[in-house]
């Protein structure tokens, strides 16, 4: 290893774990107002505080749920185990939920609140990435006149399935409320962005299955057949959930879930 590489490795290791190598300050000149240890301490402190501030912005609801001090403790452990890799700060939270899952603070005796924190972290990161994901702004969306066979999901779309109502908890925190930890309750949601506004759409289990099928490439007919088979719903009823008087078709089109592809002849719905 070159002298330069060795110096960089040592300085970086001293940022990740300030206690690992007490002799790291020997890298630096001792004159100057801060001295070697004082100067290094500024980088060490800044490293953690900068990343923690950014993580609080990516996970505002989780920070609310845990309280700032505990959240910061989690972040400190997280970045020691998983130091940031990519050039973008947006990537900081990518591995957070998986890390919490692997390093559950409740160990072998699972506690519900930990499940909630993990699910909330997953939802928050999904919502956060949707804000800057590749989207359909500037292009044409499907309209209510688009044939079912031509409907496809747009790129800024994601599905999530959780053990707790994490989406409503998240939005309550974003509105400035102080929600209490919710009881377990299965929760399916879609995230979709149109005109740079990210919309959270709560879903029933059949709706979730329908959209999951479309996300995997099915068209509407195939996705409807899937929920009929999966939930034992009569095909007519399934179609009614889709495009009946109270069906989701109109609203989902209005919210920008779909684009139109050229898919052969137009058929009546």
């Amino acid at each position, binding site marked *: 290893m070159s*002298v*330069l*590489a060795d*110096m*960089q*490795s040592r*300085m*970086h290791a001293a*940022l*990740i774990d300030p206690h690992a190598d007490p002799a790291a300050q020997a*890298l*630096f*000149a001792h*004159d*100057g*107002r*801060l001295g*070697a240890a*004082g*100067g290094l301490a*500024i*980088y060490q*402190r*800044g*490293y953690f*505080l*900068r*990343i923690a501030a950014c993580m609080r*912005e*990516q996970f*505002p609801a989780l920070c609310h749920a845990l309280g700032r001090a505990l959240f910061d403790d989690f972040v400190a452990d997280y970045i020691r185990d998983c130091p*940031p*890799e*990519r*050039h*973008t*700060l*947006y990537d900081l939270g990518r591995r957070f939920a998986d890390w919490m899952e692997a390093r559950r603070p409740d160990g072998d005796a699972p506690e519900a609140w930990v499940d909630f924190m993990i699910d909330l972290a997953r939802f928050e990161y999904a919502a*956060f990435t949707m*804000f*800057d*994901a590749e*989207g359909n*702004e*500037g292009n044409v969306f499907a309209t209510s006149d688009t044939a079912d066979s031509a409907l496809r999901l747009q*790129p800024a779309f994601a599905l999530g399935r959780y053990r707790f109502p994490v*989406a409503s908890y998240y*939005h309550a925190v*974003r509105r400035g409320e102080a929600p209490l930890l919710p009881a377990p309750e299965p929760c399916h949601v879609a995230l979709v962005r149109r005109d*740079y*506004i*990210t*919309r*959270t*759409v*709560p*879903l*029933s289990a059949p*709706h979730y299955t329908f959209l999951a099928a479309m996300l995997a490439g099915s068209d509407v007919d195939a996705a409807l057949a899937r929920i009929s088979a999966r939930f034992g719903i009569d095909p007519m009823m399934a179609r009614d959930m889709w495009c009946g008087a109270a069906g*989701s078709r109109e609203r989902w089109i209005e919210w920008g879930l779909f684009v139109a592809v050229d898919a052969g002849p137009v058929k009546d719905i």
Partner: protein
Amino acid sequence: MPVAAADGKLAGLPRLGLGLGLRNVHFDAILSGEPQDLWFEAISENFMDSGGRPRAILHAVAERYPVVLHGVSLSIGSTDPLDRAYLASLKRLAQDIRPAWVSDHLCWTGVNGHNSHDLLPMPLTEESLAHVAARVRQVQELLERPLILENPSSYVRFAQSTLSEPDFLRALAEETGCGLLLDVNNVYVSCFNAGSDPIAYLDAFPCERVVQMHLAGHQDFGTHVIDTHDRPVRAEVWELFRIAWARTGGAATLLEWDDHIPGFDDCLAELRKAERYMAGDTVSSGAAECVRGGDGVSNPVGFLIPRAMASVMEDAA
């Protein structure tokens, strides 16, 4: 890119006048107001991989104003291999936005595959100089334009350093044809902390290679100062600006503000103070504005995030 070609391109870069760092809290004010004599500097990483509103905003700003791209993660000094994916993404952004130039810092941001999200200082040695010069040449080749490198603010100096920062940058510029971004606040911060003389730093600095200057505020802790970008420019820094700007022959000048960011008009008012010093006014002692508070974290990296994140929740479908 041969040195002569880079030199030629440098000489052709425009004198942009006064500009502001593009920050998300100002997006609406910038795009709704009357166009004015101004330019913007965008943090490259905040827009490089953006498929959302930030990229659309940058497009709209670039249609109305000159824009330059300022990076914080090129890591030109790192001993890790150059990040080809990063450079390809930066090049795509540059092809899209057509900035007047592309800059980053004389620093390294990480090593061993990790990113510290800080601008870490280089040991200023002949080994570093050869290493950085080789990488600057590669980057210039790839981006097909001269790279503009900034002096970072620093809190340590490597015991092994044998060159001064001005000498290092001068040699680097001569060997590669790169341009320089002189941040006079960083000069003040680094020199104060090192106990050295900022005027002597400017005297040694190759001002003829300076394409752009930075102004910013720092926080004074008495024993040391930190480059916080969270307050007005201090009198000592205006004085360095007055001296250096004249020596650069009128380099483009930009105000950076990254934390506790005031409204757009207040930032503009702070920026326009530069006109006095460009006209040669000396700094009056009353010019120092002392602002207390803040958590003293150096702030080299502008983040966008939630204030630009609009969201709604629908009732059950």
